[in-house]
C-alpha cells in the first residue's frame, strides 16, 4: 500500500511539473540571463543583467533618448550648470515610488550622498566618485557639487545614477533594497528568488510625463540559466521568449528556427591592439613608429568583420566608439589593409625578416588567432599568452606585457571620457604616456562647453592615430534571439528596453 502511495505521489509530482509556456498569450515576457547579479541594488552590482533590471525598476533625473541621444526631462524637469563644478535640478512633482513614497528632493540628496560616500562601499565607484555632495535647496530643487569639473556628469545621470526612495533605503539599506527593490520605474519587482528568478509587473501608476513610453507587456519573468545551450533549448522549446549574448555560431543555428528572430546589435565595446611605447616597455620594437604603422597596415579589418566578428559590428579608425560624444575619426589618418606596405615599413625600420613578440589576449580567442595569421603574413611571429582579464591587465600595468588584444566597453557610457582617457591619461593602464595626448584629453574632460570638448577630443584621437599608438580594429556585435511574436529593438548600450517592447 505504502509503495502504491509513493508511486502515485511521484506520478502526480511529475504531472504538476508540466513546463510553463512563454508568450503573448498570458502577456508575460520570459527572459533569461546567465550571470547572477551580486545584488539588485544597482550601486552594488557590476553585472550586465543587474544593470538591465535596474533600468526597469528605477528612474533617472535625466533621460537620454537612445534614438536621438538627446537629453530629456525625467525625474528632473530642468537642469543647469551653475559653474564647472555645480549642477542644479528642478524636480518633478507628483511622482511616487512603488511603495507609495512620494518623490522629492530628499530622495535625490539621500541617494547621492549615500552612494558617493566610500564608507558605504558602493562597488560601482567609477559611476559615483565624481559626486562630492548633494544639497536640498527647496522641496523640489537640489544642488549637486562635483569633486572636479566633469562634463560627462549628465551622461552618468542619464545612465547608471538612479534615484532611490530615501525613507525606504534608509530603513532597509543595500541588502534590503536587493531583497525587495523599490523604485519609481516602469516595472516593479514582485518576487525575487536570489540566484533563480525575478518577477516583475508593469507599474500601472508610472508617471505619464515620463520620456519613456508606458510599458504594454504586463509581466516580465527573468530566469537565471548559466548555460547558453540550455537557454537556447528553452527558447526553442518555448520556455523562454528572449535571450541575449547568444554566441555567433548558435545565432546562426537559431536563425533557421521558424518561430524565432535573431537580431545582431552593435555594442559600445571596441577592440584594438595595444602597443606599449613607454620607457619600461618590454617590447622595445614598438617604440619605432614605422613598426607601429606596419602593424596598422597588417590587419584586414573588413575581412575580419565578415568572417570572424559577425554582422552588427563596424570598423573603427580611432580609439573610441563612434556613437559616443566626442568620438570622431575626422582628421585622423586611416591605415588601409596593405601587407606589402607593412613589410616595406618593417624593412625600413630594420626588420626585413620581421620579429618575434609576445601577444597577450583574454577574450574572443578566435579573433586573436585571426590576427596572429595576419601578423605572420608580414613576418611578425607571435607567442600567444592567453589569460584572464585581470592577469593581462596586471601584466600590462607592470610592464611585463607590451602587445595585446584589448577591448573596452566604456561601461555603456555614451561619452569619450569613459573610454579613451582610461588608456591615455597617465593612468596605470596608459602604456604610451604622451603628454600632448594627455593635455588634449584633459581639455575635453574638464570643460563643460560641448564645442571645446569636441575639438579637444578630435585632436587627441587624431594624435593617437598619427602616432599609431594603437591599432584600432572594430566594435563588437551582440546577438539577441527572441520569439517572432515580439517587437524588440536593440541599442548599442546593450540595454534591452522592455518598456518599449511590444507583442506583435
Amino acid at each position, binding site marked *: 500500500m505504502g509503495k502504491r502511495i509513493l508511486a502515485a505521489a511521484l506520478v502526480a509530482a511529475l504531472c504538476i511539473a508540466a513546463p510553463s509556456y512563454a508568450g503573448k498569450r498570458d502577456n508575460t515576457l520570459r527572459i533569461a540571463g546567465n550571470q547572477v547579479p551580486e545584488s539588485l541594488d544597482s550601486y552594488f552590482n557590476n553585472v550586465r543583467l543587474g544593470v538591465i533590471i535596474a533600468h526597469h525598476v528605477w528612474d533617472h533625473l535625466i533621460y537620454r533618448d537612445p534614438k536621438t541621444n538627446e537629453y530629456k526631462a525625467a525625474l528632473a524637469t530642468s537642469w543647469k550648470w551653475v559653474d564647472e563644478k555645480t549642477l542644479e535640478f528642478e524636480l518633478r512633482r507628483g511622482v511616487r515610488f512603488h511603495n507609495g513614497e512620494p518623490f522629492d528632493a530628499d530622495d535625490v540628496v539621500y541617494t547621492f550622498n549615500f552612494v558617493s560616500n*566610500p564608507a558605504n562601499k558602493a562597488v560601482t565607484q567609477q559611476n559615483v566618485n565624481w559626486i562630492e555632495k548633494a544639497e536640498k535647496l527647496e522641496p523640489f530643487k537640489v544642488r549637486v557639487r562635483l569633486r572636479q569639473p566633469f562634463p560627462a556628469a549628465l551622461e552618468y545621470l542619464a545612465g547608471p545614477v538612479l534615484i532611490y526612495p530615501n525613507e525606504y533605503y534608509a530603513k532597509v539599506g543595500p541588502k534590503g533594497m536587493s531583497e525587495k527593490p523599490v523604485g519609481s520605474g516602469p516595472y516593479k519587482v514582485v518576487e525575487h*528568488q536570489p540566484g533563480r528568478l525575478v518577477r516583475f509587473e508593469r507599474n500601472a501608476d508610472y508617471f505619464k510625463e515620463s520620456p519613456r513610453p508606458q510599458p504594454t507587456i504586463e509581466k516580465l519573468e527573468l530566469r537565471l540559466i548559466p548555460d547558453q545551450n*540550455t537557454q537556447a*533549448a*528553452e527558447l526553442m522549446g518555448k520556455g523562454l521568449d528572449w535571450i541575449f549574448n547568444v554566441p555567433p555560431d548558435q545565432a546562426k543555428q537559431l536563425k533557421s528556427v521558424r518561430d524565432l528572430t535573431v537580431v545582431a546589435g552593435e555594442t559600445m565595446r571596441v577592440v584594438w591592439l595595444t602597443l606599449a611605447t613607454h620607457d619600461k616597455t618590454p617590447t622595445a620594437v614598438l617604440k619605432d613608429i614605422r613598426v607601429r604603422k606596419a602593424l596598422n597596415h597588417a590587419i584586414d579589418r573588413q575581412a575580419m568583420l565578415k568572417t570572424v566578428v559577425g554582422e552588427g559590428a563596424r570598423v573603427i579608425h580611432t580609439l573610441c566608439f563612434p556613437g559616443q560624444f566626442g568620438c570622431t575619426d575626422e582628421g585622423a589618418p586611416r591605415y588601409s589593409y596593405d601587407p606589402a606596405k607593412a613589410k616595406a615599413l618593417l624593412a625600413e625600420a630594420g626588420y626585413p625578416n620581421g620579429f618575434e613578440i609576445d601577444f597577450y589576449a583574454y577574450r574572443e580567442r578566435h579573433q586573436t588567432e585571426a590576427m596572429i595569421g595576419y601578423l605572420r603574413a608580414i613576418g611578425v611571429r607571435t607567442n600567444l599568452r592567453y589569460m584572464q582579464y585581470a592577469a593581462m591587465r596586471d601584466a600590462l600595468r607592470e610592464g611585463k606585457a607590451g602587445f595585446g588584444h584589448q577591448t573596452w566597453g566604456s561601461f555603456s557610457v555614451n561619452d569619450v571620457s569613459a573610454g579613451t582617457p*582610461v588608456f591615455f591619461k597617465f593612468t596605470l593602464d596608459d602604456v604610451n604616456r604622451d603628454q600632448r595626448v594627455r593635455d588634449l584629453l584633459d581639455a575635453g574632460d574638464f570643460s563643460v562647453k560641448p564645442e571645446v570638448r569636441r575639438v579637444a577630443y578630435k585632436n587627441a584621437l587624431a594624435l593617437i592615430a598619427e602616432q599609431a599608438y594603437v591599432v584600432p580594429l572594430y566594435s563588437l556585435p551582440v546577438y539577441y534571439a527572441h520569439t517572432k511574436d515580439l517587437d524588440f529593438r536593440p541599442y548599442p548600450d546593450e540595454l534591452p528596453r522592455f518598456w518599449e517592447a511590444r507583442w506583435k
Partner: protein
Amino acid sequence: MLAYTAKRALLAALVALTVSAACFMLVHLSTDVAVAMAGEGARSEDIEFVRKQYGFDRPLAVQYADWLGRAARGDFGESLYFRTPVGAIVWARLPTTLLLGALAMAIALALSIPLGVLAAMRPNTWVDRLTLVIAVVGQAMPSFWFALVLILVFGLHLGWLPISGSETLAHFVLPAIALAYYAAPAIMRLTRSGMLEVLASDYIRTARAKGLRRPAVLFKHALRNAIIPVVALAAVQLGFMLGGSVVIETVFALNGVGYLAWEAILHNDFPVVQAIVLLVALFYIVLTFLADLANGWLDPRIRIG
C-alpha cells in the same frame, strides 16, 4: 576497534585541514583578490581601498589562521560577491544538491547493479559486451555533453520533461540521470567482478546443489556478498557526484551548491569557494571514514594490519 577509529578520525581531520590550507593558498596565489574584487576599470586607489578594507594586506598565514579560527566556530565569513554570510548561502543551496545526489545515486544503483549482475550471469556473451559498452560510454562521455543530449531529446523533441530550473521533482529527473550515468559505470563493473568471484565460490555450488531456486542463489547468497565492496564504492561515488554536480547544476540551472561553486569561481568569491571545497572535502572524508570503519568491522585483518 576504538584505537583504530581514533586513528582514522585523526587522519580524517588532518586531511580536512590540509585540503582547506591548500585551497586557501591556491585561491590567493592564483589571483590578486583585491584586483578581482575592484573590477574592470578600478584605479589603484580603489584597489588599495579594497585591500585594506578586507584585510588582504596581511600575511597569508595570518589570514588563513583568522579564517580557520572563525570557520571552527561555524563562521565562514561573508561572500565577497553577494555580501551575505557564506554559511547561510551554502545552507540554503544544500537541499537541492543533496536531493540531486540522492536521486542520482538511486538511479545509478538501480541501473548498475542489475546490469552488473546480468553481465556476471552471462560472462563474455553479447549481454556482457553490451553492459561493457554502456559502461565505457558512460565513463568516456563528458557529463555536460550527455546532459545536453538529454535536454535535446527529452526536453525539446519529446517535450516530456522540463529543461531547466528546480521548481518541482520533474526538474530533477534529467539532471539526476546525467549525474547517475557519470557514477554508474564503476559500480556496474565492480558488481560484475564481485559477482563473478562469488558465483565461482564453493558455497554457491553448495546452494545450487541443495536445489535452491536460481533467484534465491543469485540474490540471497551471491549478491549479498558481492555487494559489500560496492557499498563502499557507492559512498565514494556520492562524493564524486557532489563534485560532478558543479557541471550538471550549471547546465540545468539547478540552484544548488554546484551552481554556487561555479558562480563563486567566476567572481573570485573565495570565501564561498573555500567553504564549498571544505564542505565537499568533509563530505568525502566522512564517507571514506565510514567506509573505512565498515571495512574494519567486516574484515578484522584491516584493523589489525
